[in-house]
């Protein structure tokens, strides 16, 4: 990006190395307005940095990571206002990550509340601006936009410019759509321009696997631990995962979908992985089988011992490592309807078996607004959640834990992604149930 000032003069496209269409050239010359010119210029620079040779049209609705009016976690207000003022809008209504705040369902001290109120004082205005840019509706806030209740479900082969690492890897791997891992703000700019740089996971070659990951565990591994191990090893590469069909069966069932959702989120959060193939399960692996492997692929064997070592390496960041947990937060990424039903039923059962009606700690399950709406229709399970004192929230756990006064608390989770970004302590599902039901001798402290 040399000579930025020269580039600003209309008509000078000498810095452009991409092959542009006539329309793209017109935009870049400013014929469609100054702001779209700036947006396109940013996308072209991004494309060139990533080694793209051209831009391609985006085929469908976006999912964007930018749901929060907090600098660093979302775009600056001034920038969004500038974009709105010029009337730019995405071609299709988009979904975004969860809202950061939930005063209604989360137990917060007044000091904790004040911090959130100060941080997110612009949230309402920000959401109004997002609507002007193309946000679908008030319920479009979730990291699991691809669930049927939410319905932002791209088709196989569709070209997209998504962000939110867990959504990107799901769209690519489980749905067979094509999107790179676009960063916050660049996701929006690509969708406003209607174009995505053609490189990486948009290309056939970029979707081939550099790693063969062989799962040789004695039982179905925990998806969060497995994903963490894979992401850490393969980093930005594409893994071809063999051995999961032994436990999950062939093809995509709902349970398999949820397993892959959680595994993928951890591959992406602990690495830079935007796509995996699961043998006999995910669409491209079913079609092309091991032809998807590159000639010089590397091999990674995951057995029980490897997962034990992976988990052992996770630091515990609680101030008092033997503290009794105060909260249990589940749903990063957001839970599916089936997962929500599973957790409520299991927690209710564990409490009953332990002779308790309610847990001693705050238990919150997080899911998309539309998923929670559906969940509430199932009166029998919903009543169990009320009876067990379980709270439901459509917000973002990660944002909740960003509050330094919340981060000081001993919080447990089954999310390896949440563990990686916050002070929350990771436990397996069964361990979580034992802690909630008070069935462990010294709670989390002896894990």
């Amino acid at each position, binding site marked *: 990006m040399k000579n930025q000032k020269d580039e600003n003069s209309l008509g000078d496209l000498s810095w452009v190395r991409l092959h542009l269409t006539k329309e793209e050239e017109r935009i870049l010359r400013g014929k469609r307005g100054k702001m779209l010119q700036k947006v396109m210029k940013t996308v072209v620079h991004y494309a060139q940095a990533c080694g793209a040779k051209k831009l391609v049209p985006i085929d469908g609705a976006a999912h964007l990571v930018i749901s929060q009016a907090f600098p660093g976690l979302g775009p600056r207000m001034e920038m969004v206002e500038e974009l709105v003022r010029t009337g730019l809008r995405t071609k299709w209504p988009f979904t975004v990550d969860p809202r950061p705040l939930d005063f209604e369902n989360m137990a917060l001290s007044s000091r904790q509340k004040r911090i959130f109120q100060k941080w997110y004082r612009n949230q309402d205005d920000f959401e109004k601006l997002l609507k002007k840019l193309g946000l679908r509706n008030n319920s479009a806030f979730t990291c699991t936009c691809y669930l049927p209740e939410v319905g932002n479900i791209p088709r196989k082969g569709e070209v997209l410019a998504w962000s939110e690492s867990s959504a*990107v890897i799901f769209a690519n791997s489980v749905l067979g759509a094509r999107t790179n891992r676009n*960063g916050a703000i660049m996701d929006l700019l690509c969708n406003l321009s209607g174009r995505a740089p053609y490189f990486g996971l948009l290309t056939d070659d970029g979707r081939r696997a550099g790693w063969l990951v062989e799962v040789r565990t004695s039982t179905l591994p925990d998806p969060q631990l497995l994903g963490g191990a894979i992401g850490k090893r393969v980093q930005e590469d594409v893994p071809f995962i063999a051995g999961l069909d032994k436990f999950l069966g062939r093809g995509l069932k709902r349970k398999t979908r949820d397993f892959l959702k959680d595994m993928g989120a951890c591959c992406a959060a602990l690495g*830079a992985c935007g796509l995996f193939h699961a043998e006999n399960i995910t669409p491209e692996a079913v079609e092309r089988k091991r032809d998807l492997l590159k000639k010089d692929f590397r091999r990674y064997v995951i057995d029980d011992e490897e997962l034990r070592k992976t988990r052992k390496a996770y630091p515990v960041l609680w101030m008092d490592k033997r503290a009794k947990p105060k909260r249990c937060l589940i749903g990063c990424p957001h839970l599916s309807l089936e997962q929500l039903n599973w957790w409520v039923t299991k927690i209710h059962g564990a409490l009953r078996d332990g002779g308790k009606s309610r847990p001693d700690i705050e238990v919150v399950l997080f899911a998309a607004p539309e998923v929670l709406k559906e969940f509430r229709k199932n009166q029998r399970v919903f009543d169990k959640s009320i009876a067990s004192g379980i709270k439901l929230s459509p917000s973002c756990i990660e944002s909740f834990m960003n509050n330094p006064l919340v981060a000081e608390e001993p919080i447990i989770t089954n999310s390896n992604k949440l563990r990686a970004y916050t002070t929350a302590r990771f436990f397996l599902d069964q361990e979580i149930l034992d802690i909630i039901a008070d069935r462990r001798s010294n709670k989390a402290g002896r894990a």
Partner: protein
Amino acid sequence: MSKVFRGRVIVAKKANGTALVTRQGFNTLASFYRSILKNATRAVCSDQDNPFLYKKPLTDKVICLPRTIGSTSAGAVWEVVAERKIAPKALLFSGAIDSLAAGGVVLADLWIGRPIIAIDQLGDEFLKSVRDGQEIEIQEDGTVIVH
């Protein structure tokens, strides 16, 4: 003895600085988010999973890395650390720059006007030989001299 490496220029500027090396992926959000939330005037790495960088200062350093990893919030992170003047001076990648870092440095340059130097494809040998604390000289054509 100085070693010379040549890479591809993403964002160019002549500069000198002190090396800070990570031999594993640099998790942008995990590294910066506590400094951002605290509104810190100097960024300190908060990525608990990175033993090379955890608790080390990042501002004005020349970060030598294989790639960035983690959350796609990274684009906004690079923009805000540039705006708050707590960004590293430069990012020197041994391999090809990843999409999140690429987007971030482009945004910092074009929308904030505070470029974070980025040079990629410096080669595996670069990352093998460079050490924390070494003085690094960066030239506008992508030449990197490790003293």
